[in-house]
Protein backbone atom coordinates (compact mmCIF):
# COMPACT_ATOMS: atom_id res chain seq x y z
CA UNK A 1 0.00 0.00 0.00
CA UNK A 2 2.78 2.40 0.95
CA UNK A 3 4.75 1.45 -2.14
CA UNK A 4 1.72 2.13 -4.25
CA UNK A 5 1.30 5.58 -2.75
CA UNK A 6 4.96 6.38 -3.34
CA UNK A 7 4.77 5.17 -6.92
CA UNK A 8 1.68 7.26 -7.47
CA UNK A 9 3.35 10.34 -6.07
CA UNK A 10 6.45 9.75 -8.16
CA UNK A 11 4.36 9.47 -11.30
CA UNK A 12 2.47 12.64 -10.49
CA UNK A 13 5.70 14.53 -10.00
CA UNK A 14 7.14 13.10 -13.21
CA UNK A 15 4.10 14.10 -15.20
CA UNK A 16 3.99 17.47 -13.52
CA UNK A 17 7.61 18.16 -14.45
CA UNK A 18 7.02 17.05 -18.00
CA UNK A 19 4.21 19.47 -18.59
CA UNK A 20 5.24 22.24 -16.26
CA UNK A 21 8.79 22.93 -17.44
CA UNK A 22 9.61 26.20 -19.13
CA UNK A 23 6.75 28.13 -17.61
CA UNK A 24 8.32 31.51 -18.26
CA UNK A 25 8.25 30.92 -22.02
CA UNK A 26 5.62 32.48 -24.21
CA UNK A 27 3.05 30.07 -25.54
CA UNK A 28 1.56 29.82 -29.00
CA UNK A 29 -1.50 27.69 -29.59
CA UNK A 30 -1.88 26.37 -33.10
CA UNK A 31 -4.92 24.42 -34.33
CA UNK A 32 -4.24 22.83 -37.71
CA UNK A 33 -5.39 19.86 -39.79
CA UNK A 34 -3.88 16.51 -38.89
CA UNK A 35 -0.87 15.65 -41.09
CA UNK A 36 -0.65 19.17 -42.46
CA UNK A 37 2.82 20.30 -41.45
CA UNK A 38 6.43 19.22 -41.45
CA UNK A 39 6.80 18.58 -37.74
CA UNK A 40 10.42 19.65 -37.56
CA UNK A 41 9.27 23.22 -38.26
CA UNK A 42 7.48 23.34 -34.93
CA UNK A 43 10.66 22.47 -33.07
CA UNK A 44 12.68 24.92 -35.15
CA UNK A 45 10.19 27.69 -34.49
CA UNK A 46 10.37 27.01 -30.77
CA UNK A 47 14.15 27.16 -30.79
CA UNK A 48 14.42 30.24 -32.94
CA UNK A 49 11.98 32.36 -30.94
CA UNK A 50 12.45 30.67 -27.56
CA UNK A 51 8.75 29.92 -27.16
CA UNK A 52 6.55 26.91 -26.56
CA UNK A 53 4.16 25.76 -29.27
CA UNK A 54 1.03 23.88 -28.29
CA UNK A 55 0.05 22.12 -31.48
CA UNK A 56 -3.46 20.69 -31.75
CA UNK A 57 -5.05 18.95 -34.70
CA UNK A 58 -8.53 18.69 -36.18
CA UNK A 59 -9.98 16.50 -38.92
CA UNK A 60 -12.71 18.70 -40.36
CA UNK A 61 -13.64 22.37 -40.48
CA UNK A 62 -16.82 21.61 -38.61
CA UNK A 63 -15.01 19.77 -35.81
CA UNK A 64 -12.64 22.71 -35.47
CA UNK A 65 -15.55 25.16 -35.30
CA UNK A 66 -17.27 23.05 -32.64
CA UNK A 67 -14.12 22.84 -30.57
CA UNK A 68 -13.95 26.64 -30.44
CA UNK A 69 -17.48 26.74 -29.03
CA UNK A 70 -16.48 24.99 -25.82
CA UNK A 71 -14.15 27.79 -24.81
CA UNK A 72 -10.88 26.46 -26.21
CA UNK A 73 -8.53 29.28 -27.11
CA UNK A 74 -6.08 29.28 -30.01
CA UNK A 75 -3.76 31.79 -31.65
CA UNK A 76 -3.71 30.28 -35.13
CA UNK A 77 -6.35 28.34 -37.05
CA UNK A 78 -6.13 26.97 -40.59
CA UNK A 79 -9.73 26.67 -41.87
CA UNK A 80 -10.83 26.20 -45.47
CA UNK A 81 -12.26 29.14 -47.39
CA UNK A 82 -15.96 28.70 -46.67
CA UNK A 83 -15.29 28.26 -42.96
CA UNK A 84 -13.01 31.30 -42.96
CA UNK A 85 -15.82 33.29 -44.53
CA UNK A 86 -18.28 32.07 -41.94
CA UNK A 87 -16.00 32.87 -39.03
CA UNK A 88 -15.17 36.30 -40.44
CA UNK A 89 -18.86 37.09 -40.86
CA UNK A 90 -19.59 35.93 -37.34
CA UNK A 91 -16.88 38.19 -35.95
CA UNK A 92 -14.74 35.36 -34.67
CA UNK A 93 -11.56 36.54 -36.36
CA UNK A 94 -9.26 39.47 -35.83
CA UNK A 95 -7.46 41.47 -38.46
CA UNK A 96 -3.94 40.58 -39.45
CA UNK A 97 -1.32 43.28 -39.20
CA UNK A 98 0.47 42.59 -42.46
CA UNK A 99 3.41 44.83 -41.50
CA UNK A 100 4.35 42.01 -39.13
CA UNK A 101 4.09 39.42 -41.89
CA UNK A 102 6.58 40.70 -44.49
CA UNK A 103 6.64 37.35 -46.31
CA UNK A 104 3.00 37.90 -47.25
CA UNK A 105 4.12 39.82 -50.33
CA UNK A 106 5.42 36.54 -51.79
CA UNK A 107 1.96 34.98 -51.74
CA UNK A 108 0.43 34.53 -55.19
CA UNK A 109 -1.79 37.51 -56.06
CA UNK A 110 -4.67 35.30 -57.20
CA UNK A 111 -5.00 33.98 -53.64
CA UNK A 112 -5.63 37.47 -52.31
CA UNK A 113 -8.93 39.30 -52.25
CA UNK A 114 -11.02 36.17 -52.53
CA UNK A 115 -14.57 35.81 -51.34
CA UNK A 116 -13.47 34.48 -47.96
CA UNK A 117 -11.60 37.73 -47.33
CA UNK A 118 -12.42 40.27 -50.07
CA UNK A 119 -10.46 43.13 -48.58
CA UNK A 120 -7.39 41.14 -47.48
CA UNK A 121 -7.61 41.79 -43.81
CA UNK A 122 -7.84 38.43 -42.11
CA UNK A 123 -6.05 35.69 -43.96
CA UNK A 124 -2.63 34.38 -44.88
CA UNK A 125 -2.88 31.46 -47.37
CA UNK A 126 -1.28 28.18 -46.35
CA UNK A 127 -2.20 25.68 -49.08
CA UNK A 128 -4.40 25.84 -52.14
CA UNK A 129 -5.62 23.57 -54.89
CA UNK A 130 -8.67 22.44 -56.80
CA UNK A 131 -10.77 19.36 -57.42
CA UNK A 132 -10.48 17.17 -60.49
CA UNK A 133 -10.61 13.65 -61.83
CA UNK A 134 -7.71 11.33 -61.28
CA UNK A 135 -7.71 8.61 -63.91
CA UNK A 136 -5.73 5.64 -65.08
CA UNK A 137 -4.09 6.57 -68.38
CA UNK A 138 -4.24 2.98 -69.64
CA UNK A 139 -7.95 2.43 -69.09
CA UNK A 140 -9.58 5.82 -69.51
CA UNK A 141 -9.71 7.56 -72.84
CA UNK A 142 -8.51 11.17 -72.53
CA UNK A 143 -10.75 12.09 -75.45
CA UNK A 144 -13.76 11.05 -73.36
CA UNK A 145 -12.59 13.24 -70.50
CA UNK A 146 -12.04 16.22 -72.72
CA UNK A 147 -15.33 15.92 -74.54
CA UNK A 148 -17.51 14.99 -71.56
CA UNK A 149 -15.87 16.76 -68.64
CA UNK A 150 -17.63 16.02 -65.38
CA UNK A 151 -20.27 14.05 -67.28
CA UNK A 152 -17.76 11.26 -67.77
CA UNK A 153 -18.82 10.24 -64.27
CA UNK A 154 -22.13 9.28 -65.88
CA UNK A 155 -20.58 7.39 -68.79
CA UNK A 156 -21.64 3.77 -68.41
CA UNK A 157 -18.48 2.66 -70.15
CA UNK A 158 -16.79 3.24 -66.80
CA UNK A 159 -19.51 1.70 -64.66
CA UNK A 160 -18.12 0.05 -61.55
CA UNK A 161 -14.73 1.59 -62.07
CA UNK A 162 -14.94 4.78 -60.12
CA UNK A 163 -14.62 6.30 -56.69
CA UNK A 164 -16.81 9.26 -55.83
CA UNK A 165 -15.98 11.72 -53.09
CA UNK A 166 -18.36 11.29 -50.15
CA UNK A 167 -19.03 14.94 -49.39
CA UNK A 168 -22.18 16.86 -50.17
CA UNK A 169 -20.29 20.02 -50.97
CA UNK A 170 -18.04 18.42 -53.57
CA UNK A 171 -20.80 16.23 -54.99
CA UNK A 172 -23.06 19.21 -55.70
CA UNK A 173 -20.16 21.21 -57.05
CA UNK A 174 -19.64 18.49 -59.66
CA UNK A 175 -23.30 18.09 -60.49
CA UNK A 176 -23.84 21.84 -60.86
CA UNK A 177 -20.71 22.33 -62.93
CA UNK A 178 -21.69 19.43 -65.17
CA UNK A 179 -24.77 21.44 -66.12
CA UNK A 180 -22.90 24.69 -66.46
CA UNK A 181 -24.37 26.28 -63.35
CA UNK A 182 -22.50 28.14 -60.66
CA UNK A 183 -21.55 25.90 -57.76
CA UNK A 184 -22.79 28.61 -55.40
CA UNK A 185 -26.23 28.78 -56.89
CA UNK A 186 -29.22 29.16 -54.62
CA UNK A 187 -31.74 28.62 -57.40
CA UNK A 188 -33.96 25.71 -56.30
CA UNK A 189 -34.55 24.57 -59.88
CA UNK A 190 -30.82 24.28 -60.56
CA UNK A 191 -30.26 22.47 -57.29
CA UNK A 192 -32.96 20.02 -58.18
CA UNK A 193 -31.37 19.28 -61.54
CA UNK A 194 -28.11 18.61 -59.72
CA UNK A 195 -29.91 16.41 -57.23
CA UNK A 196 -31.47 14.31 -60.00
CA UNK A 197 -28.13 13.97 -61.73
CA UNK A 198 -26.56 12.68 -58.52
CA UNK A 199 -29.42 10.25 -57.94
CA UNK A 200 -29.05 8.94 -61.50
CA UNK A 201 -25.35 8.49 -60.98
CA UNK A 202 -25.92 6.65 -57.75
CA UNK A 203 -28.34 4.31 -59.49
CA UNK A 204 -26.42 3.60 -62.66
CA UNK A 205 -22.71 3.92 -62.05
CA UNK A 206 -22.10 1.58 -59.14
CA UNK A 207 -19.57 4.05 -57.75
CA UNK A 208 -17.92 3.59 -54.39
CA UNK A 209 -18.35 6.59 -52.10
CA UNK A 210 -15.15 7.26 -50.19
CA UNK A 211 -13.23 10.03 -48.49
CA UNK A 212 -9.57 9.64 -47.65
CA UNK A 213 -9.44 5.92 -48.51
CA UNK A 214 -9.46 7.10 -52.11
CA UNK A 215 -5.78 8.02 -51.82
CA UNK A 216 -4.58 4.52 -51.13
CA UNK A 217 -7.11 2.99 -53.50
CA UNK A 218 -5.90 5.02 -56.43
CA UNK A 219 -2.22 4.69 -55.53
CA UNK A 220 -2.63 0.94 -55.87
CA UNK A 221 -4.86 1.23 -58.92
CA UNK A 222 -7.99 -0.43 -57.54
CA UNK A 223 -10.29 1.75 -59.68
CA UNK A 224 -9.79 3.67 -62.89
CA UNK A 225 -11.27 7.01 -61.98
CA UNK A 226 -11.77 9.08 -58.85
CA UNK A 227 -12.90 12.53 -57.86
CA UNK A 228 -9.96 13.94 -55.99
CA UNK A 229 -8.38 17.01 -54.44
CA UNK A 230 -5.31 18.11 -56.34
CA UNK A 231 -3.15 17.88 -53.21
CA UNK A 232 -4.08 14.22 -52.77
CA UNK A 233 -3.60 13.68 -56.48
CA UNK A 234 -0.02 15.01 -56.18
CA UNK A 235 0.71 12.24 -53.75
CA UNK A 236 -0.92 9.52 -55.83
CA UNK A 237 0.88 10.67 -58.96
CA UNK A 238 4.21 10.50 -57.18
CA UNK A 239 3.42 6.89 -56.23
CA UNK A 240 1.68 5.55 -59.32
CA UNK A 241 2.91 6.66 -62.76
CA UNK A 242 -0.13 5.16 -64.51
CA UNK A 243 -2.36 7.88 -63.17
CA UNK A 244 -3.03 11.38 -64.47
CA UNK A 245 -5.07 14.34 -63.26
CA UNK A 246 -7.68 16.25 -65.21
CA UNK A 247 -9.62 19.36 -64.24
CA UNK A 248 -12.69 19.72 -66.47
CA UNK A 249 -12.97 22.94 -68.45
CA UNK A 250 -16.54 23.38 -67.18
CA UNK A 251 -14.95 24.72 -64.03
CA UNK A 252 -14.15 23.34 -60.62
CA UNK A 253 -13.80 24.27 -56.99
CA UNK A 254 -10.61 26.15 -56.23
CA UNK A 255 -9.99 26.18 -52.53
CA UNK A 256 -7.62 27.95 -50.18
CA UNK A 257 -6.77 26.92 -46.63
CA UNK A 258 -5.54 30.02 -44.87
CA UNK A 259 -4.07 30.88 -41.50
CA UNK A 260 -6.25 33.18 -39.41
CA UNK A 261 -6.12 34.61 -35.89
CA UNK A 262 -9.24 34.14 -33.74
CA UNK A 263 -10.66 37.24 -32.06
CA UNK A 264 -9.98 35.80 -28.61
CA UNK A 265 -6.41 34.69 -29.30
CA UNK A 266 -4.27 34.90 -26.15
CA UNK A 267 -1.09 35.76 -28.02
CA UNK A 268 -1.75 37.50 -31.37
CA UNK A 269 1.74 39.00 -31.44
CA UNK A 270 3.36 35.58 -31.63
CA UNK A 271 0.66 34.42 -34.05
CA UNK A 272 1.95 36.97 -36.56
CA UNK A 273 5.46 35.64 -36.11
CA UNK A 274 4.18 32.11 -36.80
CA UNK A 275 2.33 33.23 -39.94
CA UNK A 276 5.42 34.91 -41.28
CA UNK A 277 7.54 31.87 -40.48
CA UNK A 278 5.17 29.46 -42.23
CA UNK A 279 5.04 31.36 -45.51
CA UNK A 280 8.76 31.83 -45.60
CA UNK A 281 9.95 30.18 -48.83
CA UNK A 282 12.03 27.61 -46.99
CA UNK A 283 9.30 26.57 -44.53
CA UNK A 284 6.63 26.47 -47.20
CA UNK A 285 8.85 24.21 -49.29
CA UNK A 286 9.39 21.86 -46.36
CA UNK A 287 5.64 21.67 -45.69
CA UNK A 288 4.65 21.10 -49.29
CA UNK A 289 7.30 18.41 -49.70
CA UNK A 290 6.13 16.63 -46.57
CA UNK A 291 2.38 16.83 -47.29
CA UNK A 292 1.92 17.25 -51.03
CA UNK A 293 -0.53 20.16 -51.23
CA UNK A 294 0.35 23.18 -53.33
CA UNK A 295 2.32 26.04 -51.80
CA UNK A 296 0.92 29.59 -52.08
CA UNK A 297 4.36 30.93 -53.10
CA UNK A 298 5.39 30.99 -56.75
CA UNK A 299 9.12 30.55 -56.10
CA UNK A 300 8.40 27.37 -54.11
CA UNK A 301 6.13 26.03 -56.85
CA UNK A 302 8.88 26.66 -59.42
CA UNK A 303 11.44 25.07 -57.15
CA UNK A 304 9.65 21.79 -56.42
CA UNK A 305 8.34 21.29 -59.96
CA UNK A 306 11.67 22.25 -61.53
CA UNK A 307 14.39 19.78 -62.51
CA UNK A 308 15.20 17.48 -59.61
CA UNK A 309 12.31 18.86 -57.50
CA UNK A 310 10.02 16.57 -55.54
CA UNK A 311 7.08 17.18 -57.88
CA UNK A 312 8.90 17.35 -61.18
CA UNK A 313 6.52 16.33 -63.95
CA UNK A 314 3.47 16.13 -61.72
CA UNK A 315 0.87 18.18 -63.54
CA UNK A 316 -1.65 18.44 -60.73
CA UNK A 317 0.84 20.24 -58.48
CA UNK A 318 0.54 23.50 -60.38
CA UNK A 319 -3.07 24.44 -59.73
CA UNK A 320 -4.48 25.97 -62.87
CA UNK A 321 -5.43 29.62 -62.96
CA UNK A 322 -7.24 31.79 -65.44
CA UNK A 323 -10.37 29.68 -65.89
CA UNK A 324 -13.35 31.97 -65.56
CA UNK A 325 -15.62 29.14 -64.47
CA UNK A 326 -13.45 28.05 -61.56
CA UNK A 327 -14.98 29.25 -58.32
CA UNK A 328 -14.50 29.10 -54.60
CA UNK A 329 -17.13 27.76 -52.30
CA UNK A 330 -19.24 30.34 -50.46
CA UNK A 331 -20.71 29.76 -47.05
CA UNK A 332 -24.48 29.96 -46.99
CA UNK A 333 -26.28 28.46 -44.01
CA UNK A 334 -29.65 28.05 -45.79
CA UNK A 335 -28.13 26.35 -48.78
CA UNK A 336 -26.16 24.02 -46.54
CA UNK A 337 -29.41 22.77 -45.03
CA UNK A 338 -30.88 22.07 -48.47
CA UNK A 339 -27.74 20.29 -49.63
CA UNK A 340 -27.51 18.15 -46.50
CA UNK A 341 -31.10 17.10 -46.92
CA UNK A 342 -30.61 16.25 -50.58
CA UNK A 343 -27.38 14.42 -49.87
CA UNK A 344 -29.00 12.22 -47.25
CA UNK A 345 -31.68 11.28 -49.73
CA UNK A 346 -29.10 10.51 -52.39
CA UNK A 347 -27.14 8.30 -50.03
CA UNK A 348 -30.36 6.46 -49.18
CA UNK A 349 -31.16 5.53 -52.79
CA UNK A 350 -30.05 2.20 -54.06
Amino acid at each position, binding site marked *: *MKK*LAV*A*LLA*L*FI*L*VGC*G*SGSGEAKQEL*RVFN*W*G*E*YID*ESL*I*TEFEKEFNVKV*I*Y*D*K*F*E*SNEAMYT*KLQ*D*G*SKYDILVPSDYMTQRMREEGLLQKVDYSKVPNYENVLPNLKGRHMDPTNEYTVPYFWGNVGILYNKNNVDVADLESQGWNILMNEKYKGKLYFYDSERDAFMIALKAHGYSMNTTDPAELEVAYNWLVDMRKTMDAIYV*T*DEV*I*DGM*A*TGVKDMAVMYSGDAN*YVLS*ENPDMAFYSPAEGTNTWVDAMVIPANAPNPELAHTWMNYMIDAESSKAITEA*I*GYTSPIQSVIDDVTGPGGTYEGIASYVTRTGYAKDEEFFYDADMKVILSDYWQRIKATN
Partner: protein
Amino acid sequence: MKKQRRFGGFFALGAMLLFFYGPILVMMIFSFNDSRSLTSWAGFSTQWYTKLFESRDMMDAVRNSVTIAILATLISTVVGTLTAIGISKHKPLVKKLFLAVNNFPVLNPEIVTAISLMLLFASVQVFEKGYITMLIAHITFCTPYVIMTVLPKLRSLDPSLADAAMDLGATPFKALTKVILPQLTPAIISGALIAFTMSFDDFVISYFVTGNGVSNISILVYTMSKRINPTINALSTIIVVIITIALVLINVVPLFVKKDKRKVVTE
Protein backbone atom coordinates in the same frame (compact mmCIF):
# COMPACT_ATOMS: atom_id res chain seq x y z
CA MET B 1 -16.07 -40.44 -38.24
CA LYS B 2 -14.05 -39.45 -35.25
CA LYS B 3 -11.14 -38.29 -37.35
CA GLN B 4 -13.41 -36.21 -39.49
CA ARG B 5 -14.81 -34.43 -36.51
CA ARG B 6 -11.35 -33.68 -35.25
CA PHE B 7 -10.44 -32.23 -38.61
CA GLY B 8 -13.53 -30.04 -38.54
CA GLY B 9 -12.53 -28.78 -35.12
CA PHE B 10 -9.03 -27.95 -36.24
CA PHE B 11 -10.36 -26.18 -39.26
CA ALA B 12 -12.69 -24.05 -37.15
CA LEU B 13 -9.91 -23.24 -34.72
CA GLY B 14 -7.54 -22.37 -37.55
CA ALA B 15 -10.10 -20.15 -39.23
CA MET B 16 -10.77 -18.37 -35.97
CA LEU B 17 -7.09 -17.79 -35.29
CA LEU B 18 -6.61 -16.53 -38.82
CA PHE B 19 -9.52 -14.17 -38.35
CA PHE B 20 -8.09 -12.84 -35.08
CA TYR B 21 -4.47 -12.62 -36.01
CA GLY B 22 -4.53 -12.11 -39.78
CA PRO B 23 -5.17 -8.37 -39.59
CA ILE B 24 -2.51 -7.91 -36.93
CA LEU B 25 -0.04 -9.86 -39.01
CA VAL B 26 -0.76 -7.75 -42.09
CA MET B 27 -0.30 -4.59 -40.06
CA MET B 28 3.03 -5.86 -38.70
CA ILE B 29 4.26 -6.71 -42.16
CA PHE B 30 3.27 -3.32 -43.57
CA SER B 31 5.05 -1.52 -40.76
CA PHE B 32 8.23 -2.56 -42.57
CA ASN B 33 7.00 -1.28 -45.93
CA ASP B 34 9.35 0.93 -47.89
CA SER B 35 6.60 3.13 -49.37
CA ARG B 36 3.95 5.30 -47.75
CA SER B 37 1.18 3.14 -49.09
CA LEU B 38 -0.88 1.12 -46.66
CA THR B 39 -1.73 -1.61 -49.13
CA SER B 40 1.05 -2.10 -51.66
CA TRP B 41 4.37 -3.65 -50.73
CA ALA B 42 7.49 -1.88 -51.97
CA GLY B 43 10.33 -3.59 -50.11
CA PHE B 44 11.72 -3.87 -46.60
CA SER B 45 12.66 -0.83 -44.56
CA THR B 46 12.68 0.27 -40.94
CA GLN B 47 12.10 3.93 -41.79
CA TRP B 48 8.72 4.08 -40.05
CA TYR B 49 10.29 3.00 -36.79
CA THR B 50 12.91 5.73 -37.11
CA LYS B 51 10.19 8.25 -37.93
CA LEU B 52 8.15 7.07 -34.98
CA PHE B 53 10.90 7.76 -32.49
CA GLU B 54 11.72 11.08 -34.12
CA SER B 55 8.12 12.27 -34.08
CA ARG B 56 7.47 14.47 -31.09
CA ASP B 57 3.73 14.25 -31.65
CA MET B 58 3.64 10.49 -31.50
CA MET B 59 5.95 10.16 -28.56
CA ASP B 60 3.84 12.72 -26.67
CA ALA B 61 0.70 10.79 -27.52
CA VAL B 62 2.28 7.54 -26.36
CA ARG B 63 3.44 9.14 -23.13
CA ASN B 64 -0.02 10.56 -22.49
CA SER B 65 -1.80 7.31 -23.26
CA VAL B 66 0.51 5.28 -21.02
CA THR B 67 0.76 7.65 -18.05
CA ILE B 68 -2.96 8.37 -18.06
CA ALA B 69 -3.79 4.68 -18.27
CA ILE B 70 -1.46 3.88 -15.37
CA LEU B 71 -2.61 6.75 -13.17
CA ALA B 72 -6.28 6.16 -13.93
CA THR B 73 -5.84 2.45 -13.19
CA LEU B 74 -4.10 3.05 -9.88
CA ILE B 75 -6.53 5.67 -8.66
CA SER B 76 -9.69 3.94 -9.85
CA THR B 77 -8.52 0.61 -8.41
CA VAL B 78 -7.92 2.12 -4.98
CA VAL B 79 -11.14 4.11 -5.03
CA GLY B 80 -13.17 1.27 -6.51
CA THR B 81 -11.89 -1.35 -4.06
CA LEU B 82 -12.52 0.83 -1.02
CA THR B 83 -15.98 1.72 -2.30
CA ALA B 84 -16.81 -1.93 -2.86
CA ILE B 85 -15.69 -2.87 0.63
CA GLY B 86 -17.63 0.03 2.12
CA ILE B 87 -20.77 -0.73 0.17
CA SER B 88 -20.71 -4.43 1.09
CA LYS B 89 -21.27 -3.49 4.72
CA HIS B 90 -24.29 -1.32 3.98
CA LYS B 91 -27.97 -2.12 4.16
CA PRO B 92 -29.39 -3.96 1.14
CA LEU B 93 -31.44 -0.96 0.07
CA VAL B 94 -28.43 1.37 -0.01
CA LYS B 95 -26.44 -1.33 -1.74
CA LYS B 96 -29.04 -1.77 -4.43
CA LEU B 97 -29.39 1.92 -4.96
CA PHE B 98 -25.66 2.38 -5.17
CA LEU B 99 -25.23 -0.47 -7.62
CA ALA B 100 -27.86 1.01 -9.88
CA VAL B 101 -26.01 4.32 -9.83
CA ASN B 102 -22.74 2.51 -10.42
CA ASN B 103 -24.13 0.71 -13.45
CA PHE B 104 -25.21 3.94 -15.02
CA PRO B 105 -21.83 4.98 -16.45
CA VAL B 106 -21.27 1.41 -17.63
CA LEU B 107 -24.52 1.17 -19.58
CA ASN B 108 -24.57 4.79 -20.67
CA PRO B 109 -23.33 5.23 -24.24
CA GLU B 110 -19.81 6.59 -24.15
CA ILE B 111 -20.75 9.60 -26.21
CA VAL B 112 -23.25 10.74 -23.57
CA THR B 113 -20.62 10.49 -20.85
CA ALA B 114 -18.22 12.34 -23.12
CA ILE B 115 -20.55 15.23 -23.84
CA SER B 116 -21.59 15.59 -20.23
CA LEU B 117 -17.99 15.64 -19.06
CA MET B 118 -17.13 18.17 -21.75
CA LEU B 119 -19.97 20.42 -20.62
CA LEU B 120 -18.91 20.02 -17.01
CA PHE B 121 -15.32 21.01 -17.68
CA ALA B 122 -16.40 23.86 -19.94
CA SER B 123 -18.81 25.31 -17.38
CA VAL B 124 -16.83 24.75 -14.19
CA GLN B 125 -13.47 25.78 -15.61
CA VAL B 126 -11.41 24.87 -12.56
CA PHE B 127 -8.90 23.10 -14.74
CA GLU B 128 -7.90 24.11 -18.19
CA LYS B 129 -8.80 21.33 -20.58
CA GLY B 130 -5.89 19.02 -21.11
CA TYR B 131 -4.01 16.40 -19.18
CA ILE B 132 -5.81 16.80 -15.86
CA THR B 133 -9.32 16.83 -17.32
CA MET B 134 -8.51 13.77 -19.39
CA LEU B 135 -7.19 11.97 -16.30
CA ILE B 136 -10.27 12.87 -14.27
CA ALA B 137 -12.54 11.64 -17.05
CA HIS B 138 -10.65 8.36 -17.28
CA ILE B 139 -10.84 7.79 -13.53
CA THR B 140 -14.57 8.49 -13.77
CA PHE B 141 -15.30 5.80 -16.30
CA CYS B 142 -12.80 3.24 -14.96
CA THR B 143 -13.99 3.18 -11.35
CA PRO B 144 -17.39 1.52 -11.94
CA TYR B 145 -15.68 -1.42 -13.64
CA VAL B 146 -13.40 -1.98 -10.66
CA ILE B 147 -16.38 -1.89 -8.29
CA MET B 148 -18.22 -4.33 -10.54
CA THR B 149 -15.40 -6.87 -10.45
CA VAL B 150 -14.54 -6.54 -6.77
CA LEU B 151 -18.08 -6.74 -5.34
CA PRO B 152 -18.91 -10.35 -6.36
CA LYS B 153 -15.65 -11.56 -4.83
CA LEU B 154 -16.47 -9.72 -1.60
CA ARG B 155 -19.88 -11.39 -1.51
CA SER B 156 -18.21 -14.80 -1.58
CA LEU B 157 -15.98 -13.94 1.40
CA ASP B 158 -16.98 -15.01 4.88
CA PRO B 159 -18.47 -11.86 6.49
CA SER B 160 -16.98 -12.76 9.86
CA LEU B 161 -13.39 -12.80 8.59
CA ALA B 162 -12.74 -9.22 9.64
CA ASP B 163 -14.34 -9.80 13.02
CA ALA B 164 -12.18 -12.87 13.59
CA ALA B 165 -9.06 -10.92 12.72
CA MET B 166 -10.01 -8.15 15.09
CA ASP B 167 -10.81 -10.67 17.85
CA LEU B 168 -7.28 -11.91 17.46
CA GLY B 169 -5.97 -8.41 18.09
CA ALA B 170 -5.74 -6.80 14.69
CA THR B 171 -6.64 -3.13 14.34
CA PRO B 172 -9.37 -2.47 11.76
CA PHE B 173 -6.74 -1.14 9.34
CA LYS B 174 -4.62 -4.26 9.79
CA ALA B 175 -7.67 -6.45 9.32
CA LEU B 176 -8.30 -4.66 6.04
CA THR B 177 -4.75 -4.82 4.68
CA LYS B 178 -3.68 -8.21 6.06
CA VAL B 179 -6.91 -10.18 5.79
CA ILE B 180 -9.49 -8.68 3.46
CA LEU B 181 -7.30 -7.25 0.71
CA PRO B 182 -5.17 -10.39 0.14
CA GLN B 183 -8.40 -12.36 -0.29
CA LEU B 184 -9.58 -9.84 -2.86
CA THR B 185 -6.32 -9.69 -4.84
CA PRO B 186 -7.46 -11.70 -7.88
CA ALA B 187 -10.58 -9.58 -8.26
CA ILE B 188 -8.63 -6.36 -7.77
CA ILE B 189 -6.10 -7.40 -10.39
CA SER B 190 -8.74 -8.25 -12.94
CA GLY B 191 -10.52 -4.97 -12.16
CA ALA B 192 -7.28 -3.09 -12.64
CA LEU B 193 -6.65 -4.84 -15.96
CA ILE B 194 -10.09 -3.90 -17.23
CA ALA B 195 -9.55 -0.32 -16.09
CA PHE B 196 -6.19 -0.18 -17.84
CA THR B 197 -7.59 -1.53 -21.09
CA MET B 198 -10.58 0.79 -20.99
CA SER B 199 -8.38 3.81 -20.42
CA PHE B 200 -5.69 2.89 -22.95
CA ASP B 201 -8.32 2.16 -25.56
CA ASP B 202 -10.61 5.12 -25.06
CA PHE B 203 -11.21 7.56 -27.87
CA VAL B 204 -14.65 9.15 -27.61
CA ILE B 205 -14.39 10.51 -24.10
CA SER B 206 -10.77 11.58 -24.43
CA TYR B 207 -11.57 13.42 -27.63
CA PHE B 208 -14.20 15.57 -26.00
CA VAL B 209 -12.44 16.40 -22.76
CA THR B 210 -8.95 17.18 -23.99
CA GLY B 211 -7.44 20.41 -25.21
CA ASN B 212 -4.20 22.40 -25.33
CA GLY B 213 -2.45 19.99 -27.63
CA VAL B 214 -2.76 17.05 -25.26
CA SER B 215 -3.76 13.97 -27.23
CA ASN B 216 -3.49 10.24 -26.83
CA ILE B 217 -2.79 7.60 -29.45
CA SER B 218 -6.38 7.18 -30.58
CA ILE B 219 -6.97 10.91 -31.00
CA LEU B 220 -3.75 11.18 -32.96
CA VAL B 221 -4.85 8.49 -35.39
CA TYR B 222 -8.29 10.01 -35.74
CA THR B 223 -6.93 13.42 -36.71
CA MET B 224 -4.77 11.94 -39.45
CA SER B 225 -7.62 12.42 -41.88
CA LYS B 226 -5.49 13.97 -44.59
CA ARG B 227 -3.03 11.10 -44.68
CA ILE B 228 -2.65 8.02 -42.60
CA ASN B 229 1.00 7.21 -42.46
CA PRO B 230 2.59 3.88 -41.62
CA THR B 231 4.27 5.18 -38.46
CA ILE B 232 0.99 4.09 -36.90
CA ASN B 233 1.71 0.53 -38.03
CA ALA B 234 5.12 0.73 -36.42
CA LEU B 235 3.64 2.01 -33.17
CA SER B 236 0.92 -0.64 -33.18
CA THR B 237 3.45 -3.35 -33.86
CA ILE B 238 5.49 -2.28 -30.85
CA ILE B 239 2.37 -2.30 -28.68
CA VAL B 240 1.43 -5.78 -29.90
CA VAL B 241 4.93 -7.06 -29.17
CA ILE B 242 4.95 -5.58 -25.67
CA ILE B 243 1.54 -7.06 -24.91
CA THR B 244 2.60 -10.45 -26.23
CA ILE B 245 5.68 -10.44 -24.02
CA ALA B 246 3.62 -9.35 -21.02
CA LEU B 247 1.04 -12.09 -21.60
CA VAL B 248 3.71 -14.73 -22.01
CA LEU B 249 5.40 -13.60 -18.80
CA ILE B 250 2.12 -13.53 -16.87
CA ASN B 251 1.22 -17.03 -18.05
CA VAL B 252 4.63 -18.70 -17.89
CA VAL B 253 6.26 -17.23 -14.80
CA PRO B 254 3.64 -18.55 -12.31
CA LEU B 255 4.26 -22.10 -13.60
CA PHE B 256 7.88 -21.89 -12.51
CA VAL B 257 7.10 -20.16 -9.24
CA LYS B 258 4.56 -22.84 -8.31
CA LYS B 259 7.01 -25.61 -9.07
CA ASP B 260 9.55 -24.08 -6.71
CA LYS B 261 7.01 -23.88 -3.92
CA ARG B 262 6.03 -27.50 -4.32
CA LYS B 263 9.66 -28.47 -4.05
CA VAL B 264 10.00 -26.67 -0.74
CA VAL B 265 6.95 -28.46 0.62
CA THR B 266 8.11 -31.92 -0.40
CA GLU B 267 11.54 -31.35 1.02
